């Protein structure tokens, strides 16, 4: 048996001290060890984007990252987006624009859009396509997701 590793990770602002097997992926760590099932596991090889979380503010695939790699770093999952039960601007925009149907891919989209708007509150269409190109949705046909992004941009502008 490989030696388990002690890790300390901040997830959605809470520090977790855990002992994990080296082969445990970050996605499985979040879901099974921390009981945060909002991060969805789709393809498990970094292609579909459903498992996207923020790692020190950057959107990454948690299915192709090991929990041990995150020792001493900060993770934000979809559970960390709403405050006091209120949806944030991006989540609210998804509701208003019908940016989801089955919702399986949605956590990944939300995290990717979070990084994009943190980096640039007013991204060009090209930038939006580049970011969304890394997320797969099989329901919406993407147009309503694009509408949700534009809605979220307006909401954030109005709030600032």
């Amino acid at each position, binding site marked *: 048996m490989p030696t388990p590793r002690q890790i300390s990770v901040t997830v959605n602002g809470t520090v977790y001290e855990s002992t994990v097997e080296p082969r445990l992926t970050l996605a499985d760590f979040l879901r099974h060890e921390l009981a945060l099932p909002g991060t969805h596991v789709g393809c498990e090889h970094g292609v579909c984007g459903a498992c996207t979380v923020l790692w020190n503010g950057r959107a990454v695939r948690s299915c192709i990252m090991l929990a041990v790699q995150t020792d001493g770093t900060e993770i934000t999952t979809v559970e960390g987006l709403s405050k006091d039960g209120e949806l944030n601007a991006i989540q609210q925009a998804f509701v208003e624009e019908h940016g989801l149907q089955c919702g399986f891919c949605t956590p990944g989209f939300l995290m990717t859009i979070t990084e994009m708007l943190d980096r640039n509150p007013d991204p060009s269409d090209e930038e939006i396509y*580049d*970011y969304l190109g890394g997320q797969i949705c099989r329901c919406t046909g993407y147009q309503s997701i694009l509408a949700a992004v534009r809605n979220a941009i307006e909401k954030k502008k109005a709030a600032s």
Partner: protein
Amino acid sequence: MKPAPFEYCAPEVLTEAVEVLEQNEGDAKVLSGGQSLMPLLNMRLARPEVLVDLARIPELDYVREDHGALVIGAMTRQRTVELDPMVREKHPLVYEATINVAHPQNRNQGTFGGSVAHADPSAEYPALAVALGAQFKAVGPDGERTIDAEDFFVTYLTTDLEGAEILTEVRIPALPDGAAWAFTEVARRHGDYALAGATSYFTLGADGKCATARIVVFGVGGTPVRASKAEQAMIGEAPSAALFASVGKAVLDDVEEPQSDVHASAAQRRAIAGVMTERGLADAARRAGIAI
């Protein structure tokens, strides 16, 4: 779809990482950004006994200029290269290659050194390195050595690195002054591995004719392929649509039989490499304001 068990270590100094590789020669694998290795582990196509994570070695993460060359630490995230204003301004071909690497979400985690050391023949950075004549610095049990890009890539997923050697730095010369440059590829979807692609640059002499030309095609063999015959076909000629078309055809003479797979046949890959070369040269001319 879960990795087989392995031991994990994340040394903070490079020599310790080399020692671990040496002690476990053949059974240990270096983990950098994991964007290629982790899928292989998840699918159990790779089953190393030990993973050596280089992310805790701080001196492998930097982007800087040295005498005009771009010098990148092996563990620098691809996204860091992409977002560095100096890279975009002074090393535009490096920037252009970078934005063709997978998606932002992968570039946030994937490293420059990891991509070149993985040596996928469809990947962008190996082709870029060969085109610009990059040099690779590696540290192993016998110390440090420098490897030229054309010697570094041996065949599919295989480099000149020895089992206990670690790639530490890539040094990429700047384009010649006034060079017209291009990076073009065809992938089934943007962000996928390329079926095939081409990267090139050329300069014009005072007579308006091509003085230097460099053409590298990728996805059409075990390594990036320097298209020397096609380069020769450009020298001394004035840039024109007809020249670029004939150079695109000449590339086919430089390409041996590529692999056929579920994504594209060998013939299709060759054809794409030729067309990408032709279109890339036209792009390069347009961007540099050269009338053709």
